[in-house]
């Protein structure tokens, strides 16, 4: 059962039928939701230092970001991309170790929560400064082209808030100039922290930015898993096939606070009644039930499996030692003989 999180990417396997892909995606979403709910309860219990940031309500978009990428593709997830990270191959232990400050995690206690990644495995480690990772993704793709690699793509995630940074603009523009096979998935979850769209931008539709960069632009209903899989899947396919860079703008509502410290009391009732405020996970489950893709027992089994995986990842990380200051080498550069002899 536990292989769900660790089975390798199936790039060589035959293309799954649409409903198989749907179920696979759903299972990652379920895992992400389960994991994040657990992280939230640990946070509430005072067991996590720093913030907890979840992707509740955004799992359908996110999972589609991770699911179509193959080994060798570049993925630059952001704050709300647990589903996509898992689908891309991030072990649950990377998450729990980072949140719980295990010295064995990929960040070794040096960085926390969502600021994690494994650049060697093509999962970039976001910095906080929004927008900054787009051009980094472009550079990674250029490196692959320099190396003569073929058939690769990169996917970089952004929120509608991050789209307003200068860094994002420069990254989009340079991607189009360099004609790298890039997909940018922008999730408009209607808030940047507490700030509603009307103080974030003034255009009618963010997808209208695509043309100004020389990207191809698409919109997607982020609450609808089928739509997400279709639209993001085909954007990835187009980028891989050599079409111009792709911008996909998804519409959802963030179904949580900005972080778990935030009660999101600024979210208006009116917005909560919008179609984009629906819970993509519930909708996907409803589809599964309606179309009878799974029987109730299997669904129950999947839930249990997700919970078991999460529990194990948490209990493993919890048992691991924290980093200790006197075991740190406190070197910010890898070239040890060039470390400045500052006291």
């Amino acid at each position: 059962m536990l292989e769900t999180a660790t089975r390798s990417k199936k790039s060589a396997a035959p293309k799954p039928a649409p409903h198989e892909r749907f179920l696979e995606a759903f299972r990652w979403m379920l895992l992400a939701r389960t994991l994040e709910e657990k992280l939230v309860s640990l946070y509430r219990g005072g067991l996590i230092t720093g913030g907890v940031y979840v992707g509740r309500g955004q799992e359908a978009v996110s999972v589609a970001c991770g699911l179509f990428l193959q080994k060798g593709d570049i993925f630059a997830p952001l704050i709300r991309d647990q589903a996509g990270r898992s689908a891309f191959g991030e072990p649950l232990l990377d998450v729990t170790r980072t949140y719980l400050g295990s010295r064995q995690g990929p960040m070794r206690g040096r960085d926390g929560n969502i600021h994690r990644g494994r650049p060697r495995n093509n999962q970039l480690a976001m910095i906080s400064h929004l927008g900054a990772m787009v051009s980094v993704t472009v550079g990674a793709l250029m490196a692959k082209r320099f190396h003569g690699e073929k058939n690769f793509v990169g996917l970089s995630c952004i929120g509608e808030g991050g789209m307003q940074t200068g860094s994002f603009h420069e990254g989009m523009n340079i991607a189009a100039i360099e004609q790298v096979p890039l997909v940018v998935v922008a999730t408009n979850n209607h808030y940047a922290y507490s700030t509603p769209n009307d103080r974030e931008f003034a255009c009618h539709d963010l997808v209208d930015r695509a043309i100004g960069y020389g990207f191809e632009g698409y919109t997607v209903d982020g609450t609808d898993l089928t739509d997400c899989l279709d639209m993001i899947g085909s954007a990835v396919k187009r980028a891989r096939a050599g079409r111009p860079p792709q911008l996909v703008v998804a519409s959802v509502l963030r179904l949580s606070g900005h972080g778990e410290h935030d009660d999101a009391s600024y979210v208006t009732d009116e917005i909560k009644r919008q179609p984009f405020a629906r819970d993509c996970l519930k909708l996907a489950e409803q589809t599964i039930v309606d179309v009878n893709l799974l029987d109730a027992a299997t669904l129950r089994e999947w839930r249990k499996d997700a919970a078991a995986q999460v529990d194990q990842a948490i209990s493993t990380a919890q048992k691991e030692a924290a980093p200790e200051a006197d075991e740190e080498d406190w070197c910010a550069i890898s070239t040890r003989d060039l470390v400045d002899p500052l006291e």
Partner: protein
Amino acid sequence: MSITYLEAIREAQAKLLRDDERVFIYGQDVGGTFGGAFKATKGLAKEFPGRVLNTPISEDAMIGTAIGAAMHGMRPIVEMQFADFSSTALNQILNNAGTHYWRTDVPVPITVRLPSGGTKGSGPFHSQSMESLYAHYPGLIVMTPATVEDAYSMLIEAVAIDDPVVYCEHKYLYYHLKAENLPTESLPTGKARIAREGRDLTIVTYSAMLHEALAVAEQLATEGFEIEVVDLRSVKPLDTNTVLASVARTGRLLCVGESFPWGGATAEIIARVTAEGFHLLDAAPQRLNAKDTPIPYHPNLWSAHRPNAKEIARKARALLRE
């Protein structure tokens, strides 16, 4: 009544909005019902409609807009969500605000609030102390208040000053620090304060490190040493005279700052004191800064990365023995 460092910042802004119609507040999430990531502007949008404005995630444009407004008679206060994010506004701060008066004879009275410094679990991008970057460039005043009283009175002063002010407020002090009352008078910016008198060693510091230094002074008093602690209050201008006068009394100097070690405030103090007060020194002046790595997320690492009371005490004792 009891008021925190954070509340003092909020109260100062409320007063500024009340007393001066040129003032407006500009920043991410400062408005609405929310009142900022740290609630430093809580309630102000409602009390002062149209004058506490949310911005997009556009630090460069936030400062650019403030510069344009300031040039034309307004007194904007820009809140950066975290000091660390001002890196993307740095060009506007240094090259536009910082040069404008000198180039055009028209001053740019903006106040940029930087929630600064480390707190546990905040990691490399929500913990930085950037006062040394801003002080290095010409044209800016850089305030680093360490007390509730200064947080209040210096913010009011910042807005009154005709030149750009980078106001570094320390997040660790937000809730930790309390005072009985808001001050009715205060030292002017540019004057350091003797936070504790002593005659054996001078510790010069500012912002959150003041409180570590005071704790060390307290502790070393039990060992028979009298440590004088100087709170710089602003790192630019830097009150060299008060520091020199203190070193004249004690003969020993330890500078403590939370920013990165290469260059910066502690080096600047030492360079000034040795240039002008070399003969006053009975021992080699020393400094203590954060370590030369990004600021770690994990509390175990973080508390060793910043200078802490234990380290300061160790350095102080070594200096006292010389």
